Structures are given as structure tokens and as C-alpha cells.
């Protein structure tokens, strides 16, 4: 029982990271209509952006989040301007998907070139865990879970109560009607990238805090992130949050029964199961 509770807590931590990534994937899909394969590597960029603050300025990983966000947002906007926008006019969205795959390779290689292939950590040494009976929680885990909840609330308030948040939902709902209502499509696309990249960067820093930094850290997380987005219903940011936690908790709890090396297979199995049982996802997203 204690083991299960402990794993569920780890699952919530993993789920937080997945949810932040999956919200971005879902937002990008809902506005731009393609699966953004470079999203995992945007997380990596964020994680290494955080490392800039930690190693050069001596900041804590949390205090380095603004640097991580700034770097990821710049990369995403550059990709939009140089890659996605020129390809968007007149070509099928599959072209965008494939080009995002290419961008993923570029980003990963760039990180490897600059930071080296060896794993890195934000801080060495052991963090003193907090004990609650038999349950052990690291302070970092509190920050990850608390930070994710705060971001989800902020995003919810933005989408529900602000003019531009509502316009983003309108774009996701009916792109043509949004255009003929005078909603500036291009500005909304830029805003989508800013939000998606910012969330990816935070997820990357959280992932770095939870484990360690490595050039393929984000790429490896892409499958569970996509699984979370699809489980929740692709194009539905709220679904992505639920999907993230479901996948995260399932992955961690599965280690009670099977080898931890198969964690990602659990995410994949859930994804396949969902596509068979309910292809539109829990929250009735767009069917692909």
C-alpha cells in the first residue's frame, strides 16, 4: 500500500511534466492542425536554457525558468518564421509534421554540439527528502507539482476570461469563422507558439530537476507526451492535462508489476488501447 502511494506520487510528478508538454502539443494541434514532433526537443532546449542560469549565474533551477522560457520561445518563434510559415501556404499539414521532425533532429544535435553528449545535473549531491510516515517526497517534487497546478490554473483563467484566450479557443473551434470575425490569425498563431514553448520549457526544467539533463531527454518523452495529448482528445488542452496525469501515474505504478524499462511501453499500450476504444480521446477531440 505504501509502495503504491509512493509510486502514485512519482506518477503525479511525471504526470505534471507530461501534462505541461501535452498541453502545448494539443494547443499547437488545435490551432495549426499538425502534430508537432519537435515539442520534446523544445523541452530539452528549455532544460538546457535553465542550465545557463544555474551554471553561469548561479541561480536555482526554479529561478532559471525565465531564461529557459525565453530561449524556448525564441526557438519556437524562429521555427515558425523560418520553417512553418513558409511551408504552411498551400502545402498539406503532413509537410509541416515532417518538417517538425527535421527540426527535432536539428535542435537535439545543436544541444549536443553545444553542451556535449554527457548527462548533466542542475546540482550535484543528495537533496534531503521529506518523510511522511513511510512516504518520501523530495522538495523538488513539491515545486514540480505545485508549479504545474499554478500554471494550469493560470492557463485556465487565460482561456476562459481573457479576450485573446477566448479568441484562441475560437480559432481552435472554427478557424474560418474566426477569420471572418476579424480575429487576426497570424497573431493568434504566434501567441500559440509562445504559450506552447513556454510550457515546454517549464516541463524541461522540471524534468531536469526530477532526473538529469541529456540531449535526448525531451525526445524520449515525446511518446508519452503524445500519448497524453491523444488520450485526452487531441486539440483539447484540458484533456491533455488529464491525459498527462493518467499516463504519468500508469507509467510509474506499472513498475510495481513489470520492469521499469517498459515504462514507455505502458504509455504506448494505453495510447493504442485508447485509439481502439475511443479514437477521439476522453474529451472528444478531433479525430485524426
Amino acid at each position, binding site marked *: 500500500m505504501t509502495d503504491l502511494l509512493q509510486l502514485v506520487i512519482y506518477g503525479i510528478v511525471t504526470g505534471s511534466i507530461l501534462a505541461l508538454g501535452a498541453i502545448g502539443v494539443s494547443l499547437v494541434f488545435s490551432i495549426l492542425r499538425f502534430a508537432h514532433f519537435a515539442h520534446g526537443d523544445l523541452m530539452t532546449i528549455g532544460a538546457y536554457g535553465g542550465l545557463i542560469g544555474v551554471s553561469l549565474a548561479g541561480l536555482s533551477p526554479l529561478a532559471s525558468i525565465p531564461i529557459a522560457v525565453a530561449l524556448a520561445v525564441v526557438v519556437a518563434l524562429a521555427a515558425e518564421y523560418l520553417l512553418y510559415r513558409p511551408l504552411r501556404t498551400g502545402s498539406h499539414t503532413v509537410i509541416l509534421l515532417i518538417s517538425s521532425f527535421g527540426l527535432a533532429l536539428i535542435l537535439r544535435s545543436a544541444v549536443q554540439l553545444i553542451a556535449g553528449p554527457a548527462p548533466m545535473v542542475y546540482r550535484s549531491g543528495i537533496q534531503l527528502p521529506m518523510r511522511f510516515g513511510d512516504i518520501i517526497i523530495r522538495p523538488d517534487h513539491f515545486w514540480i507539482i505545485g508549479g504545474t497546478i499554478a500554471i494550469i490554473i493560470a492557463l485556465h483563467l487565460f482561456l476562459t476570461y481573457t*479576450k485573446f484566450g*477566448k479568441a484562441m479557443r*475560437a480559432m481552435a473551434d*472554427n478557424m474560418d*469563422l474566426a477569420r*471572418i470575425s476579424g480575429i487576426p490569425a497570424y497573431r493568434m498563431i504566434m501567441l500559440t507558439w509562445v504559450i506552447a514553448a513556454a510550457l515546454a520549457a517549464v516541463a524541461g526544467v522540471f524534468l531536469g530537476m526530477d532526473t538529469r539533463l541529456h540531449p535526448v531527454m525531451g525526445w524520449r518523452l515525446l511518446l508519452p507526451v503524445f500519448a497524453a495529448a491523444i488520450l485526452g482528445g487531441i486539440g483539447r488542452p484540458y484533456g491533455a492535462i488529464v491525459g498527462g496525469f493518467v499516463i504519468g501515474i500508469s507509467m510509474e505504478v506499472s513498475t510495481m508489476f513489470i520492469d521499469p524499462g517498459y515504462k514507455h511501453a505502458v504509455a504506448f499500450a494505453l495510447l493504442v488501447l485508447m485509439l481502439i476504444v475511443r479514437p477521439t480521446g476522453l474529451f472528444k477531440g478531433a479525430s485524426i
Partner: protein
Amino acid sequence: MALLEATGVTGGYGGADILSDLNLTLSAEEIVVIVGPNGAGKSTFMKAVFGLVTIRQGSIAFDGRDITNMKPETVVTRGVCYVPQERNVFPSMSVEENLEMGAFIRKDDWRPQMQRIYDLFPRLAERKRQPVGQMSGGERQMVAMGRALMLEPKLLLLDEPTAGLSPKFIDETFRQVKRVNEFGVGILMVEQNAKQALAIADRGYVFANGQNRFDDTGAGLLANKEIAEMFLGG
């Protein structure tokens, strides 16, 4: 002076011209109905006015200014709003949010206009918070019209507002169109329910093969036996 003046409009999607040398005028505060067989270019013409179809020859002027091939985002700022036939609401958003999106480009206070729309469609006032996707076809049509009216347009383009509605809602929709017009909004409407539409119209056009074949007052077209037989289903 005409509010909308289309002169020799030729154009279509990609290479093929659907509209060929089409002429139409609409005076301020007028209801003009376009009828005609399927494929006559009725909806295409409306889209051309709104900048959704490429015009290769001819011109469209609105309120004395040229709007030929202007982007929809710009046409909307000139005081033309368009209600497409299908997919004309934001289904996952509430009634109030749909109306708010209609007012997206307004910098001034649009609350009074929202209240006027609720007065016009009391049924919407009762369902402000309901997601539009859960509403009936007739109610959706009200939301669609309400969204378009949020900008207080001088001209409203309605593409088959009664398509797929039950007879009860068809009558109600035409009554509402008439009331919107009484607020001083010019209306250009494409309709399949030609007889009912022409009955509320000031003038009507009959389109065929991408051209305007006949035009007359609504009553005049209804009284014309030849047109009735050919285009209005007897």
C-alpha cells in the same frame, strides 16, 4: 447611392470561373434575395463580396469604396458581416462567448449591442452560458446572426439561413431577418426557400450559370409566371 455595387464580376476558385460578368446592386437598408438553381454561383458571389473568392475581372464597391479582392479581415472592418451556411458558430463556446467573438475587432463598448441582440433573440438571452454545440439548428442560426450583428454592420450577408431548419424555424428566421433589416441593416441573402424569401425581399435576383438572369422587386419576381416555373418550383 448604392450600398453595394458589383459590376461585371468574373471569378471563382483556382482556375475555373464560376461567376461570369455578374452585376448586382443593393441600396442602403434594402433586403435583396438571390435565388436560382444549384451551381448558379449564388453562394460563390456572396463569398466574392466578402473576399473569400478571387475576382479576376470586374469590381465590387461598398459604400462608395472599392473592396474588390480585399481580405475578409479588412472587409469586416468596413461594415460588412457574413454568416456562412455551415459551420457558422463556435460550437464549444457559450452563446455569450460567440457574440463576444463577433465583437473581437471593436475597441468601444459593445455591451449595448449585445443587449440589443438579446432583445432581438430572447431565446439566446435565456441561454447565455450554454455551449452552442448543444443547441438546436434554429437556435444556432440565431447565434450565427447575432455574432455577425455584433459589429453593427451596414450590410449583412446571409448564406441560406433557413437551410436544414424545420418549417416553424424557417418562418421565425425570416421574421428575424425582417426585424434586423428594420434596424437599418442592409441584407443580401441567398435562399432555397425562394417564395418565402422573396416575400420579405425588397428586390430579388435570379442567378443562372454564374450570371444575373432576372431582377425585379420581390413581388414582381413572385408574380412572374415564367420565372416561377423555371426557378421557383412552380
